[in-house]
């Protein structure tokens, strides 16, 4: 029996900042102090507060150590684990309140969160099926198989109002219902979309790393509901830890008879296979994903026929995203009413967001639907670093749009977001401050879609490329008002005529920045000026002669010899030679250099 549990984050973020070495150090130090039979070291999934990794949590006290280094380990072992004195200086500073140590759910980051899909992340060892079972794992599958008919299962999911968490927001129960005809007569498939491709999104990865069994259990429940006996998880090959843990979990589930034949003595058979993603963004689109599983080049095809009728290998197939599945066991166990008690009327439940960009607490958060953007950015995210102002947030990655500062009180749910021209997306939430140029952001996302367009249909292949060229023209200072009209016209065309979701949503970042930040586009075109000071071609560096003391520091650091002047006399910049690298501004001690 272990009296203390040392939980060490084994998510991708903390692993890349050395949590493997920290785990090894704990094991070594515990053995050296003869504590290895009293203290258990557990590798877990993501705790969410990735900005402060590597993270170590020690139970039963629940002490939350942040930014742990290898050399801290001996200290923690001798002080905390041997003598019972948590090392205050290494604890997450928000949990230390004078003499008292606050619990985590009283901190700004965790207070407003509600963990459903992430409930086991950071709590269990994802490589041990018995720990999952200890937290009621596989009880939902047991309940479904022994107490419910397949139609009961579908009805419960329908009643819960769960909507697809991959971005589209299609009701999950409805999707299952469409595929449930002819159970037992035709071969069907259950697929999981873990091909998370949005820049800055890592929700699905963290769930697979932290709680892979939840996805396996949910897929088996889905298989029972529609009458399928085979599942595929299509997961990015770039997620090695997630793939490894998922494979371990599948093997363990097979060993325990939770996958395989005659599960719970009900006569229901189900097994799951992992398919590694082909490394293209478009493979996250449902028809392209299935084509890729079949072994073909990942390209979309027109719908209908919808996958529910004719999907993988021409068979009825349902495809849901990782987070959607992670909610299913909880819904089956606790009922549709429980799920509806969270979130809003039309968007029940919670949503996981990967918080990134210009924000203090970068990481993974799960909040009830209807939480406002302000709560997420200011309270959970801890605000913008360096006292900068919030300018906008991008949801939905390259398919979504931006939410400007004046709409920061928008509740985050499917309908409110689409009303303001953005979308829920899979959950990437990128925060931008006043130093971000919105034209440049639109260009960034468009560069991504141009790169990732599969080339099958012309509107997307050629249209996005032409759109990007128009944006480049504007950011280089050569844009005209006619270009702005062309952009709007072309964006609508690409949106309405592309074959799949990738092309249909590709113009969204351009359209939404144009809608809310039109004056920034105008500044680039009419005044040849980038208000945020990002677009290099439009920047001019200037020295204020009143502030300049003539110290020559800038001149000595200029790589282009563009700064002239003699000692103790104001300097000046030759704009023809200036390469706009900003080195002078960084070195000036008197704040005499400005850009604009």
């Amino acid at each position: 029996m272990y009296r203390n549990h040392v939980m060490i984050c084994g998510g991708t973020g903390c692993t890349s900042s050395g949590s493997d070495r920290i785990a090894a150090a704990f094991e070594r130090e515990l053995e050296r102090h003869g504590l290895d039979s009293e203290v258990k070291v557990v590798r877990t999934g993501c705790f969410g507060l990735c900005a402060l990794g590597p993270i170590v949590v020690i139970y039963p006290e629940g002490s939350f150590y942040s930014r742990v280094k290898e050399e801290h380990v001996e200290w923690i072992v001798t002080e905390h684990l041997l003598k019972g004195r948590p090392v205050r200086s290494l604890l997450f500073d928000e949990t230390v309140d004078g003499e008292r140590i606050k619990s985590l759910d009283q901190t700004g980051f965790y207070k407003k969160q509600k963990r459903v899909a992430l409930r086991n992340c950071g709590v269990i060892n994802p490589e041990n099926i018995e720990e999952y079972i200890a937290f009621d794992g596989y009880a939902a599958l047991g309940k479904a198989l022994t107490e419910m008919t397949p139609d009961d299962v579908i009805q419960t999911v329908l009643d819960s109002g769960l909507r697809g968490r991959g971005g589209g927001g299609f009701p999950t129960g409805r999707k299952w219902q469409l595929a449930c005809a002819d159970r037992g007569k035709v071969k069907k498939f259950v697929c999981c979309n873990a091909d998370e491709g949005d820049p800055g999104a890592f929700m699905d990865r963290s769930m697979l790393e932290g709680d892979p069994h939840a996805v396996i259990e949910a897929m088996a429940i889905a298989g029972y509901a529609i009458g399928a006996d085979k599942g595929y998880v299509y997961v990015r090959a770039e997620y090695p830890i997630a793939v490894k843990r998922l494979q371990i979990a599948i093997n363990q589930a097979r060993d325990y008879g939770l996958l395989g034949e005659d599960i719970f003595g009900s006569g229901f058979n189900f097994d799951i296979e992992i398919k590694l993603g082909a490394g293209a963004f478009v493979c996250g689109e449902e028809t392209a994903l299935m084509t890729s599983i079949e072994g073909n080049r990942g390209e979309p095809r027109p719908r209908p026929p919808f996958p529910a009728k004719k999907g993988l290998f021409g068979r009825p197939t349902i495809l849901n995203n990782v987070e959607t599945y992670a909610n299913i066991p909880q819904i089956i166990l606790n009922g549709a009413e429980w799920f509806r008690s969270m979130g809003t009327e039309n968007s029940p439940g919670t949503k996981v967001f990967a918080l990134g960009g210009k924000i203090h607490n970068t990481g993974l958060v799960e909040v009830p639907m209807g939480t406002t953007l302000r709560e997420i950015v200011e309270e959970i995210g801890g605000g913008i670093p360096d006292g900068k102002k919030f300018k906008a947030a991008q949801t939905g990655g390259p398919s979504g749009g931006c939410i400007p500062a004046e709409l920061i009180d928008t509740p985050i749910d499917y309908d409110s977001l689409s009303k303001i021209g953005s979308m829920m997306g899979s959950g990437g939430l990128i925060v931008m401050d006043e130093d971000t140029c919105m034209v440049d952001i639109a260009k960034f996302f468009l560069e991504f879609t141009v790169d990732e367009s599969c080339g099958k249909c012309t509107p997307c292949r050629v249209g996005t490329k032409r759109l990007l060229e128009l944006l480049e023209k504007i950011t280089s200072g050569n844009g005209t008002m006619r270009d702005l009209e062309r952009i709007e016209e072309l964006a609508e065309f690409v949106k309405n005529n592309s074959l799949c979701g990738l092309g249909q949503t590709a113009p969204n970042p351009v359209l939404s920045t144009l809608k809310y930040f039109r004056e920034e586009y105008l500044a680039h075109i009419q005044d040849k000026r980038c208000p945020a000071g990002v677009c290099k071609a439009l920047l001019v560096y200037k020295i204020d002669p009143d502030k300049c003391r003539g110290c020559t520091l800038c001149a000595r650091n200029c790589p282009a010899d563009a700064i002239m002047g003699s000692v103790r006399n104001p300097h000046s910049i030759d704009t023809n030679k200036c390469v706009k690298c900003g080195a002078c501004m960084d070195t000036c001690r008197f704040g005499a250099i400005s850009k604009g």
Partner: protein
Amino acid sequence: MKSLKELEAIRDRMRQTVNTRESDSNTIRVVVGMATCGISAGARPVLNAIVEELARENVAGVQVTQTGCIGICQHEPVVEVYEPGKEKVTYVKMTPEKAIRMVHHHLMKGEPVEEYTIGSLTK
């Protein structure tokens, strides 16, 4: 896995291991003094005896933690029991045997073992 019973058996066995990671407002806290004075007086076997007995008897809702020196080094090993809504009970000069008795009477039946408490010293 052929029945729900098998699943429940695994769950119940594992609950003991993982309930260390959970606590709520009803949790009883048992705190063992593990400063140098406590350790040299034998606090570690006491601590482990409590943890193991709780597991053996399948007692949930009890959190066992350590603390540093509480200033009565002459009476170590010291064990304090905090029950929600009740006065703290302080046990002194504990041994693994006394600790096991404390678990059975105090933590399981709610009857503190008066003769081991600090109050008994002054009598």
